[in-house]
């Protein structure tokens, strides 16, 4: 009998589903499949992982990387990602930054930088948890996060400053 029941599965999907899909977009063009595989893998576990969110991010990461290993699939992802970047976020009037601009800026980052930004900002993982997922140290994850933020600020540039001035 599996430990993870339907209630927990539904709650995880509600709380982490969108962030996990955004996280998996860094590698593959079918992020929903990677997230679904990770949730099913969680169901097969005899015990619930102690740190559930980092475990899910690590499994989604592995599944997404596995999906993107095919060169043909990667090429298709690269062509498709350009058209889908605008769909990474839901545009809202209350946004302090343009969703499409932010998506394009995120897309221009390296996959490592994008992974840290997504895991930190939308996944809510601590630097220690990010380090465990990526297999690096906490301080290294923090440095890469700051470097990624700086790169985003450089790419967004005036747009971000304009919004800041508006506030």
């Amino acid at each position, binding site marked *: 009998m*599996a430990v993870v029941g339907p209630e927990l599965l539904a709650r995880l999907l509600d709380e982490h589903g*969108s962030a996990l899909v955004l996280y998996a977009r860094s590698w593959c063009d079918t992020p929903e499949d990677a*997230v679904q595989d990770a949730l099913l893998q969680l169901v097969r576990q005899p015990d619930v992982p102690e740190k559930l969110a980092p475990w899910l991010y690590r499994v989604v990461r592995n599944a997404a990387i596995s999906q993107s290993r095919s060169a043909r699939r990667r090429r298709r992802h690269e062509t498709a990602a350009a058209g889908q970047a605008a769909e990474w976020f839901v545009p809202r009037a209350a946004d302090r930054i343009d969703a499409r601009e932010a998506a394009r800026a995120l897309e221009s980052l390296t996959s490592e930088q994008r992974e840290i930004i997504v895991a930190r900002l939308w996944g809510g993982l601590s630097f220690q948890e990010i380090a465990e997922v990526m297999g690096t140290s906490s301080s290294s994850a923090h440095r890469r996060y700051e470097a990624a933020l700086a790169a985003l600020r450089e790419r967004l540039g005036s747009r971000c400053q304009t919004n800041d001035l508006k506030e």
Partner: protein
Amino acid sequence: MSPGGHTPSDLQALEAALASLAPRPATIDRDRLMYEAGRASVSTVPAAPHGRWAWPAAFSAMSAIAASLFLALVLRPPVVVERVVQAPMVEKEREGEEATGRRGDEVHDRGELPRAFELARGGEEARGRGGNEIPHEEAPGRSYLDLRDRVLAMGIETWQPSTNVAVADSPPPATYRELLIEFGELR
């Protein structure tokens, strides 16, 4: 989702602005996910409590046993196999007795095993007396048992049946024609 942490102040505004964006909701089919989860939960076999270390422990134990047996095989001292071969001594005994002039009754003092030597010598003596005589102690019922004892004690090489000598000296068997003449069927 509040990022928190130790982000420099010049990046905190950008960090907060990015965090305010809402990722597009996942388009995962919830019903299909629940269905697949149900199938996966049925096929899930709970791991045994000792499953994590049972196989490694068994593997380690078997490896240790195999290594010790290999060392024992390699390092054991060479084994010398000593095999006692009993060679028939009939001829030597007979020559020795002839040289010393002792007779067969003295052999009885040597224990039970020389019984076979005595029997062998008995056959030799019978052959020397013309082959038709059988020693007095060799009753017809015991001849086979004595012969068996002799062969078991000293080997098949010592079997020299005295009956061959007796048969060689006996008249040849009657032919079919002679038998017919004898019974009057043929004149």
